[in-house]
């Protein structure tokens, strides 16, 4: 039978577009991916964000620095302490004041506990993305202990707003050191279980090795930082590049790989948890005595522009403040890690199956409120 024009047209258009999200379990939030498929293969995809755009930057223009701090928790809620620290450091640099060593130590310990808690949750959800439900129970079991430590000291489990410009909201709980040490001891025993469950698993290898390879050039070009950037060999750990708080005092390794596939993005986070444990151990016994809050008359940034980079659990967070000298910022901008990490997805998922897209986007560890702000 002769091929009609309609047949040819249909053959040429053997692609269809499906929407993954905004309410899809593997997007971990309200993100819509418009995926163009050819059979089961991803031809290209277009991310649509903004479903939970709250206008944090606009709101912040009407708030003082200690007030706007509370909104930063709600960006990357799994790195709440680190987001607070970024704003606090930026304002302190602007005011040219320095907090006591005690505050620096506590901030760093809290930041590393946050990083571990965030990676635990990611590990739990990543296993689930790939169909392994047990990881969720293991991960949340251990994360609970960190949240308990946070609750005792800060009064809050998820969004703490504990680190403020000038220091901390209050001193740590008397049990803080004891419980943190107990946790470190406990988690050093439990972390090898994570490896037993996933890292050495053959099915897991099949699903992740060689999938979604990101080159170092792409990582730099798209501005992909954090564990995904370091899995591709991009030296982007702000704790090493521009050390802040107590990071200059501790010894730790920046985890770098060159492979850049889903498996190595996974491996970076597992190894980072070991490094975080070691950082906490170096600091926890040596917290020096001192003031936890500077006595500042008014928190005002002098006229000028200030930028602060910190390393959250997901990559580089930048806080850019334009000040006219008053208690309110004229403009505040957050360069959030997830925003930059998202758009590389189109590049690295092309040619892979749609099931692999779930693995790839899971390995980027996206937190959607951080993209939308």
């Amino acid at each position, binding site marked *: 039978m002769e091929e009609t024009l309609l047949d040819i047209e249909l053959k040429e258009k053997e692609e269809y577009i499906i929407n993954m999200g905004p309410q899809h379990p593997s997007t971990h939030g309200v993100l819509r991916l418009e995926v163009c498929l050819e059979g089961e293969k991803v031809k290209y995809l277009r991310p649509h*964000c*903004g479903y939970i*755009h709250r*206008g944090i*930057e*606009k709101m912040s223009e009407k708030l003082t620095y200690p007030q706007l701090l509370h909104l930063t928790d709600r960006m990357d809620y799994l790195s709440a302490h680190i987001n607070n620290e970024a704003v606090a450091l930026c304002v302190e*640099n602007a005011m040219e004041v320095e907090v006591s060593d005690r505050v620096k130590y506590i901030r760093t310990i809290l930041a590393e506990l946050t990083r571990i808690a965030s990676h635990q949750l990611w590990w739990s959800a990543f296993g689930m993305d790939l169909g392994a439900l047990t990881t969720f129970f293991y991960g949340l079991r251990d994360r609970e202990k960190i949240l308990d430590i946070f609750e005792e000291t800060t009064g809050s489990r998820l969004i703490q707003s504990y680190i403020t410009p000038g220091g901390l909201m209050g001193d740590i709980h008397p049990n803080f050191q004891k419980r943190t040490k107990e946790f470190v001891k406990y988690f050093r025993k439990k972390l090898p279980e994570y490896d037993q469950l996933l890292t050495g698993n053959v099915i897991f290898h099949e699903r992740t090795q060689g999938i979604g390879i990101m080159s170092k050039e*792409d990582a*730099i*070009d*798209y*501005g992909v930082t954090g564990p995904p950037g370091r899995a591709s060999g*991009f*030296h*982007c750990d702000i704790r090493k*590049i521009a050390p802040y708080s107590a990071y200059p005092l501790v010894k730790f390794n920046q985890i770098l790989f060159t492979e850049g596939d889903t498996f190595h993005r996974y491996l970076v986070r597992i190894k980072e948890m070991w490094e975080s444990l070691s950082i906490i151990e170096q600091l926890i016994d040596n917290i020096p005595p001192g003031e936890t809050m500077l006595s500042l008359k008014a928190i005002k940034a002098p006229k*000028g*522009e*200030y*930028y602060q*980079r910190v390393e959250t659990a997901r990559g*580089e967070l*930048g806080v*850019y403040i*334009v000040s006219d000298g008053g208690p309110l910022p*004229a*403009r505040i*901008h957050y*360069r959030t890690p997830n*925003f*930059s990490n998202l*758009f590389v997805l189109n590049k690295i998922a092309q040619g892979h199956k749609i099931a692999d897209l779930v693995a790839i986007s899971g390995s980027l560890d996206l937190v959607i409120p951080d993209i*939308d*702000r």
Partner: protein
Amino acid sequence: MTREEMTALVRGKFPDVKLGSNKQFPEFIAAPDQIHSLCTALKEDAQTKMDYLFCETAADRKDGFHLVYHLTSSALGHCVMLRTVLTDKAKPEVETVGGIWMAAEFYEREIFDLFGIQFAHHPDLRRIFLDDDWVGYPLRKDYKDSFTLEH
């Protein structure tokens, strides 16, 4: 590279570029029609190799929209801050740097969405957060909608 060396290098190539007053990073203020060639030069020069644009954003100031670029080199580690001022607030337009750094394409979409700055030759300039039929640009200081409170 030190601040002085960076200044000498940039001023040698672009004599019109003014020095900014930022204490943290060496800051250069370029004219809007010059920013693209300045960015290209900073990326391609073997001495600077600015291959990583870590922040691009805008601010609504009295004298116009300030576009600010924060660049660094992944290999050499030095940072620089570029600024250009778009004085025509009614019709702000500048050349895109999306062709130089892929990341800029998305930062610029955000700036277009919230400030209404047009980026010439941008391949995909659409709103990124707000709906396509949204009226106005929220991060402008004169923005008003039905939810704005009068003090």
